[in-house]
């Protein structure tokens, strides 16, 4: 998501940086903890959820951008980007689920969860928006 210099984008970038830093710290810390000193129940559930919280923060950050961006054209582009991300994520996860249902691929996600594909979809949406903007620029 890249409209330069708008206050909403600056807030988005600050929030995204903070949540991603928290995510990296928590995923490394929980990985180490569960390998070397697995916590007992119910603490294991609470601690296992911790790295998911910054991911929820990132999703909140994206939604806040849609609310806070005052330029309606850019807001439309960001909404299209999130719709592309949601569509891509749902498509991949639905196909994957059926492949697993019929034992075509192994069970489990091997670290590639729903959020991973949604973020990948945001990247695809950004590429789509970029192509669209370049096409507009090249028109007379």
């Amino acid at each position: 998501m890249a409209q330069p210099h708008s206050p909403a984008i600056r807030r988005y970038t600050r929030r995204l940086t903070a949540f991603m830093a928290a995510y990296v710290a928590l995923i490394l810390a929980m990985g180490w903890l569960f390998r070397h000193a697995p916590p007992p129940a119910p603490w294991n559930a609470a601690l296992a959820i911790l790295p998911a919280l910054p991911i929820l923060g990132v999703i909140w950050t994206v939604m806040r951008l849609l609310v806070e961006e005052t330029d309606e054209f850019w807001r439309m582009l960001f909404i299209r980007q999130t719709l592309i991300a949601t569509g891509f994520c749902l498509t991949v996860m639905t196909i994957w689920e059926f492949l697993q249902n019929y034992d075509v691929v192994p069970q489990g996600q091997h670290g590639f969860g729903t959020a991973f594909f949604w973020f990948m979809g945001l990247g695809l949406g950004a590429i789509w928006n970029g192509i669209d903007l370049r096409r507009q620029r090249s028109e007379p």
Partner: protein
Amino acid sequence: MNNCLRILRAERGWSQQDLAERLEVSRQSVNAIETGKYDPSLPLAFRIADLFAQPIEAIFLRD
């Protein structure tokens, strides 16, 4: 929706950036509206009409 924004802007010697600043939107917004890729909201259409001192229907035309 067609519009004559580019002509009105050119008559005043404004660049897309000049118009964008007057409307408090991005230059890309002005470009998208001029090229018909994006139809502005009613509030923005009124701001454009006010800026050029013309009714909305004189600026934005049916396809």
